[in-house]
């Protein structure tokens, strides 16, 4: 009896951060298990090599399952004091992180089987810890939370890069990473403290609300909220609003909840399928605010912003009813947004209706104290310059982590010195959550500052990264350093599309990231699976370009897959790399960054040089002396071919990933 009740109360779906909680608990338990087993003299120091990887993969898969099971909407109402945000964006990015981590764990597990045996169960623990940190970072809604998450995964990273204890390079790179990480943290904390000092809050929503109130008196059309500016359809809607507001207002007021539900779905479909003009005020308001912000605290803020549009109507008597409907509709709509396909089952409908009642109450509750906050904030009250410096320092700290161009030097050394698997992890996985944080900072909280003051510097840094990535790779002979440069240039493209300051740019950035992660997995899988035929015990980790000369003789399929991955990274048409690159450029051109895009296109041409040189080494060298590699096993072959195939398939059918982020971005904005 008791258990059943408990189960009803703490329904898993309604438990915030269930995946992270599970992961952290299991990490503790896992560490305990591994330590107690491995160092047991009585058992003869059992070597836990393979099973820890299986266990680690299991943890990540289970947390992935929990993630899929989450009910984002309900969790948002019970989140812990706004430290955590559980929106669709965090869901999508977490999903991606978990999937790639599982793939990563599988790849290194398979590749480690051929390696000499050593007891390295700590490695898996560290990986799971860093995955936990990345997951937390994705849903951070507060600079403190973000900082803690960054530190959590960074510490794991430091140890991971210094993991090869007998190699001085590895130790050196770990130390360098640690010191640069400390510098980055210092920047972050300094920036945060400036922001806190000026604005009195570190929560992203609060900051955003602050800015939207700040800019209210100066600009008329800013009532629609800073975040809404991105979407062109909404701008048109706001123009439309002024004319038809009066005539259409009674319509939502008089509808019953049932009709309302249907109506909303109709509207939702319309707004998804074609960005047509809204047919009524109700749809307009939904499009603009509540579809976009499912978090409850957002309701409040957006209500405030939209209340300025409705300035004159507040005094009228039917305002109460309007509020109610306003909330309900937006809630239903945001719920419907979670369904991958906009058709709802009956179960979903009933759950909506049951949850409606809660929100009636909450909305009434908020009505009570909305009046006193309506006063706009005076500009002279705050030193905006200082805030922008703080903002920029936080961004710099993230840039250091992301290895954007002038802050990139550490990454080359760290990539080169760390064990290959660690480099693999650094190169592929952590970027996405840092970009999520950067997006929350730049697009949600500090959008005004970002667009007005820093956009041009962001562009400059992006171009500089592309420049360094393109030219630095020309002289490299080591494969890992080459990949580090390649990663810098790809980060440059990401930042380029990020800096455009509109929804398409962000969308394209996440899309690029996802594709980049897949091709990175594919490339590193090939890299790790290359094991020389002779000298099994002396396997040079840092491969040089010339080592690949005879790959097409010893394993033609692997050579082909490697060439294909390289073509995809370079952006050659029949592969998905072309699609994302052209997407980034077209986004940059659409936002009128002509000079920047021309320069980066030229640099992208230069950067194809080293990818194609690699292909030339693979296929067109007439040497007969070179290194031969052992044939790979079925599991590896399966894994690699799935990854490589996805590069082709995604080019012809990119919709799966695209839609995921399309939805995430639109909801987040």
């Amino acid at each position, binding site marked *: 009896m008791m258990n059943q009740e408990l189960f009803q109360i703490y329904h898993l779906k309604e438990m915030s951060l269930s995946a992270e909680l599970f992961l952290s608990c299991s990490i503790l338990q896992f560490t305990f298990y591994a330590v107690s087993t491995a160092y047991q003299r009585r058992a003869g120091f059992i070597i836990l090599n393979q099973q820890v990887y299986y266990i680690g993969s299991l943890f990540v898969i289970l947390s992935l399952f929990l993630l899929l099971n989450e009910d984002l909407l309900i969790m948002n109402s019970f989140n812990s004091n706004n430290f955590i945000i559980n929106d669709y964006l965090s869901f999508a990015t977490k999903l991606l992180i978990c999937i790639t981590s599982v793939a990563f764990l599988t790849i290194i597990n398979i590749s480690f089987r051929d390696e000499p045996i050593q007891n390295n169960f700590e490695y898996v623990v560290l990986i799971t810890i860093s995955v936990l940190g990345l997951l937390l970072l994705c849903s951070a809604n507060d600079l403190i939370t973000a900082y803690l998450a960054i530190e959590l995964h960074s510490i794991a990273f430091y140890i991971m890069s210094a993991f090869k204890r007998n190699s001085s390079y590895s130790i050196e790179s770990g130390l*360098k990473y640690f*010191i*640069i990480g400390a*510098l980055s943290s210092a*920047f972050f904390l300094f920036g945060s403290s400036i922001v806190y000092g000026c604005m009195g809050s570190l929560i992203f929503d609060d900051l955003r609300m602050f800015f939207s109130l700040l800019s209210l008196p100066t600009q008329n059309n800013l009532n629609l909220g800073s975040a809404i500016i991105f979407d062109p359809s909404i701008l048109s809607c706001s123009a439309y609003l002024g004319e038809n507001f009066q005539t259409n207002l009674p319509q939502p007021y008089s509808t019953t909840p049932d009709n309302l539900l249907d109506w909303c779905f109709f509207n939702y479909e319309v707004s998804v399928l074609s960005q047509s003009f809204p047919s009524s005020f109700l749809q307009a308001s939904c499009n603009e605010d509540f579809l976009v912000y499912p978090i409850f605290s957002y309701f409040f803020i957006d209500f405030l912003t939209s209340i300025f549009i409705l300035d004159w109507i507040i005094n009228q008597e039917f305002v109460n009813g309007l509020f109610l409907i306003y909330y309900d509709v937006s809630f239903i709509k945001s719920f419907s947004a979670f369904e991958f396909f906009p058709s709802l089952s009956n179960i979903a409908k009933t759950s909506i209706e049951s949850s409606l009642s809660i929100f009636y109450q909450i909305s009434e509750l908020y009505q009570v104290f909305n009046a006193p906050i309506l006063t706009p904030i005076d500009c002279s009250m705050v030193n905006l310059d200082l805030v*922008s*410096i703080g903002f*920029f*320092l936080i961004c*710099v700290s993230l840039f*250091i982590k992301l290895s954007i161009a*002038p*802050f990139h*030097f*550490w990454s*080359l*050394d760290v990539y080169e010195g760390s064990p290959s698997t660690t480099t693999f992890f650094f190169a592929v996985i952590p970027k996405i959550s840092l970009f999520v944080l950067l997006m929350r900072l730049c697009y949600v909280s500090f959008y005004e500052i970002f667009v007005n*003051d*820093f956009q041009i*510097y962001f562009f400059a840094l992006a171009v500089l990264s592309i420049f*360094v990535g393109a*030219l*630095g*790779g*020309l*002289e*490299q002979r080591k494969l890992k350093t080459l990949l580090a440069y390649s990663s810098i240039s790809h980060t440059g493209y990401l930042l380029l599309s990020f800096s455009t300051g509109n929804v398409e740019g962000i969308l394209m950035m996440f899309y690029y990231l996802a594709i980049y992660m897949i091709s990175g997995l594919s490339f590193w899988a090939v890299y790790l699976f290359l094991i020389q035929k002779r000298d099994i015990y002396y396997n040079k980790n840092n491969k040089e370009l010339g080592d690949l000369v005879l790959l097409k003789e010893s394993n033609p399929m692997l050579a082909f897959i490697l060439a294909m991955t390289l073509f995809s990274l370079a952006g050659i048409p029949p592969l998905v790399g072309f699609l994302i690159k052209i997407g980034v450029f077209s986004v940059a051109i659409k936002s009128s960054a002509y*000079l920047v895009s021309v320069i980066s296109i030229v640099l992208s041409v*230069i950067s194809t040089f080293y990818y194609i040189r690699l292909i030339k080494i693979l296929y067109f060298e007439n040497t007969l002396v070179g290194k031969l590699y052992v044939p790979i096993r079925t599991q590896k072959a399966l894994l690699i071919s799935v990854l490589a195939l996805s590069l082709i398939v995604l080019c012809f059918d990119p919709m799966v990933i695209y839609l995921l982020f399309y939805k995430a971005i639109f909801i987040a904005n």
Partner: protein
Amino acid sequence: MYIPLVFLSLIGFIITGLFGRYIGPKGAAILTTSCLIISFFLSLFAFYEVGLMGSPVYIRLATWVSSEVLLINWGFLFDSLTVVMCIVVTFVSSLVHLYSIEYMSHDPHLPRFMSYLSLFTFFMLILVTADNFIQMFLGWEGVGLASYLLINFWFTRVQANKAAIKAMIINRIGDFCLIIAILTMFVNFKSVDYATVAALAPFFKMQTVNFLNMDFNILSLICIFLFFGAVGKSAQLGLHTWLPDAMEGPTPVSALIHAATMVTAGVFLIARCSFLFEYAPNSLQVVAVLGASTAFFASSVGLLQNDLKRVIAYSTCSQLGYMVFSCGLSDYAVGVFHLANHAFFKALLFLGAGAIIHAVNDEQDMRKMGGLKNLVPFTYSVMTIGSLALIGFPFLAGFYSKDLILELAYGRFSSFGHFSYYLGTFGAFLTAFYSTRLVCLTFLVKPNGYKSVIGFAHETFSYIFIALCLLAIPSIFVGFYTKDMIVGVGSDFFGSAIYNNPKTLHVFDAEFVEFLFKILPVTLSLCGAGLSFFLYNFQSSILFYFKTSFIGRKIYSFLNKKWFFDKIYNELFGQFFFKFGYTMSYKAIDRGTFEIIGPTGLSSVALNVAHKLHKVQTGSLYHYTLTILTTVAIILSLRQCWLIFEYNVDYRGLILIFISFFFILNSKN
């Protein structure tokens, strides 16, 4: 029906050109000639339907260019003007094909020759049947190409190469002007269709356009440039030098391209654009003056040429001058009428000359001929017919058109009309003189050639005979039978194909010309012919004394050297552009600037930068940290400075800096 008319020759070209070695010379000859003959019969039909029955045909085959602003169709417009041209082109072309079978029978590349001839015919038909300027331009360039290929047919001869290149380059000047005209038309009319432009032309009568920082009347500008295009193609004074040199090609080519069809394309163009020229009276005056000058100049030069073909070439040039100035005096129909007549007898003359050259073992110098009357009597008779037709002997073809031109020129009763009339009439005298000189020197005077050559002179009664026969008939009768239909008073044969402004219509004015001025041209012609006959046959000693006198020598060298046009062009323009081309555009721009900005500079700079980036990677943490801190400081200070520099920074300056950066980096090497 109408489409095969145009495309049969293309089929002939493709089959002969691509599979010539499989079907052999005979097959190629049969194929192309039969294609052309069918095409001729089709154009006879078209002439019947369009010309006689008065039902113009307009066919839109497909879309060629369809962008937002520009729509170009593959359209074919058959009106009276077009069908007259079609008849002329296909008739002469098929006879030239026939003639070439025998004339070129000893050449191993007969299929190639036939395919080029067919290609030429195809492009010529495209030129005349096009319904827009772009398609017309395609044909225009195509005939230029075919002309180049055919002049250069014996590509082992240096003279032929030079002549071909000269023809190409001088035509390029005209083509460039034509492009400017078409572009101006497109910019202002937003269309390049004949129909659209014709409909819009009156509305642009008074409008001006800025060209080279000066304001011009739009229509005048367009017409002048169109005319310059025609000047290049029709070898008018100034750009005429290529035509005599083009006689290096095989004689059938001269007959087809450089006498009958291609060179008349300019006249056709002016007649086709009558709807523009009629609204630009100023440019018509330019046309008239230049045409009349050409008529006089070329006939004076033709007077003292010794090369058989060059005499006829200058005569062509002179006759083109007649056509052009008649167009310039708004008598487009008469110009076209003379074009058609001229095509027949000039082709006859050229083919006859070819027969002579064939007979005397490829000797072209008239001074080494003589006395061929009894050896090649048939050729003698057709050459006499041709020459008399050219002179304008009463009731032969040239009489009807040339005298009408001169009569109408006088009937214009304007200073330009009189100017043209007097130059033309004097030119007619000279024409008669040199034509008779040609016949006398070749056939009548005592034999001057080598015995071994003259002794074997004979004529064949094969294809050459047929071709000459078939050309002699229209040379005699075409004027007599078609004058009233085409240019008769009140004839509406051309209908809407040629537009005549009522203000400039002066057919009836010509009826009031004094009898003296009506009879003067023909009298002068007959006098010239008689004088020449007398002098060269019986009193050559007078000529000799005159030639060897002081003034005579000056005049002789002046005329024989073609008024020193070639010398002036070579020394003034040719040398200058040679030097400029080598020192400036090749050494300084191509191998200098572009090389530094382009391939060499780019690759060396890229490698340089790569090397530097490699060196920057010191591995020392101090440097990395310093870079990070410096960048942060620079960006933050730039942000402050931006307020000052914002209005002074020009983005074009960045490009300048970029380029100078290249030079600086390269100068160090």
